[in-house]
């Protein structure tokens, strides 16, 4: 047992905590400084967490089969960029993006139709709500049987997973515009499509982006889990399940790091896009 490393890690954690406490107490008048502090606090917390993780692993000599230290995972990431890139390309660029686009697109179109036909709204929406809560990843083996082992079957799982959140959220969003605004559109003599495109869809945007954000995580999960059921010898889910079997836990964590990075970046990108599209919304003004 290496108490020195452990002590250093714990000390770093404590210092980071104190610094954070001090940072929270600050009341900067400059807007830019306030923004920097807002970013600093969680960043410092994350770094402290990593240092503590490293310290505990090194300090207690935990076997790398159980839990690798962050430095080991990083070494593995830098030494096997090509494998990680191939897996990322197979899972994310092919399966996730195709499935995400098709699932969200068809969910949106279905929502517009459901909104137009009240009978469908009453009949389909409760079922959509139910399906959105179901363990949809379970259809993965069926999709593999139908669409083969390659990325198409994973994209199909992603389509089914993302369709219902999009449907439910968009239908809710289309009712978000107020009666007054709709009456205004009527006094302008606008028809259904004009009202839809110029008023109701823009008003639904916060809901639509909410679904897009939920779906960005769901899509990645769906594609990775679907690969547990069978895949050609490339892909993030495939790599995770085989490397776990070979006890190469550091490789698994490297894949998880890539997945986390991809998930966070797509989420961040969507958040930026949302801000640009819904600039009129009270929460951004």
């Amino acid at each position: 047992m290496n108490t020195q490393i452990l002590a250093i890690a714990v000390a770093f954690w404590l210092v980071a905590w104190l610094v954070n406490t001090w940072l929270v107490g600050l009341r900067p008048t400059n807007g830019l400084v306030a923004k920097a502090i807002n970013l600093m606090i969680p960043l410092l917390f994350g770094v402290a967490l990593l240092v503590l993780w490293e310290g505990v692993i090194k300090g207690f000599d935990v076997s790398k089969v159980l839990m690798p230290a962050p430095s080991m995972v990083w070494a593995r990431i830098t030494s096997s960029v090509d494998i990680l890139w191939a897996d990322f390309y197979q899972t994310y660029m092919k399966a996730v993006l195709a499935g995400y686009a098709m699932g969200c697109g068809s969910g949106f179109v279905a929502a517009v139709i459901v909104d137009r036909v009240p009978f469908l709204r009453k009949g389909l929406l409760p079922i959509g709500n139910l399906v959105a809560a179901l363990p949809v990843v379970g259809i993965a083996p069926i999709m593999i049987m139908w669409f083969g082992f390659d990325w198409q079957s994973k994209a199909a799982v992603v389509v089914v997973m993302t369709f219902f959140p999009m449907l439910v959220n968009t239908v809710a969003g289309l009712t978000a515009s107020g009666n007054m605004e709709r009456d205004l559109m009527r006094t302008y003599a606008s028809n259904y499509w004009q009202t839809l495109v110029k008023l109701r869809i823009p008003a639904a945007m916060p809901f639509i982006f909410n679904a897009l954000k939920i779906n960005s995580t769901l899509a990645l999960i769906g594609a990775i889990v679907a690969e547990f059921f069978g895949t050609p010898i490339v892909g993030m889910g495939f790599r995770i399940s085989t490397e776990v079997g070979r006890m190469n836990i550091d490789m698994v964590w490297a894949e998880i790091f890539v997945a986390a990075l991809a998930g966070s970046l797509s989420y961040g990108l969507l958040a930026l896009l949302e801000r640009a599209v819904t600039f009129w919304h009270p929460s951004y003004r």
Partner: protein
Amino acid sequence: MLERRGFSALLYDRIVPIGVVVAVIIVLWYGFAVLLNAQFERDQAARAKTEITTSQLIERTLSQDRPLLPAPHQVVSEIWDTTVMKKITSKRSLVYHGWITLSSTLLGFLMGTVLGISLAVAIVHSKVLDRSLMPWIIVSQTVPILAIAPVIIVVLNAIGISGLFPKALISTYLSFFPVAVGMVKGLRSPDVMHLDLMRTYNSSAAQIFWKLRWPASVPFLFTSMKVAVAISLVGAIVGEMPTGAVAGLGARLLSGSYYGQTIQIWSALFSAAVLAALLVMLVDLASRIVLRRMGMAQ
């Protein structure tokens, strides 16, 4: 539009539309079952050098052993066979597998709810935690958490912990998030006026918590628990896959996909769906009862 009330509202706004949509889905399902399974039957007939009539074709496509898409009645009869007709202790009983999945779902849901509530309480009461932990809780959900499932299972197996607990941990990881976020919102929901009133009563932080914040957060708690219980089930099912398909609904899915037993896959899927719906309904029922007793029912 005409306002309907009571039974006729239930009939025209719920039962008829939902019934029609379900009926359409079932009809479509039969159609696709015939369409997808027909190729196999035609191949069989061509190999045996016999002609089959259309009615024969339809009849056979709906009663294959390993169809590409089983017909609804095949799935229903399989579920009937493996729940009512088998002994509960039998390894082929869906009740047995369902119970295994359900127990780890419930344990994970319980741990996740407790963890979520404690995190929310800590975040509401500590500014440092709010600013440093909250962003990471949100980032943790952009990570495809289920990807970690095999790691958790294998690692805990290696140090001698197996069975219910590792699967429950995955459910915990999935279900703590909605509870934490919902409870932070709920614990902050009391008005400034109410908080000020408590302060004029000279109440301590603990008193404010138990008499104002906690009661105000109960509706938020139940809303997030509905989401949490559904994803706990997903976590438990996925957690059963990497252990090598021993027992549970996830194992039924995996072994069904290994051996091409489509009817088994579909029946496992349906029982998972029924289980999810039942769990959500149960939480909903509990929330109605509690909110009514607290005088908060709408």
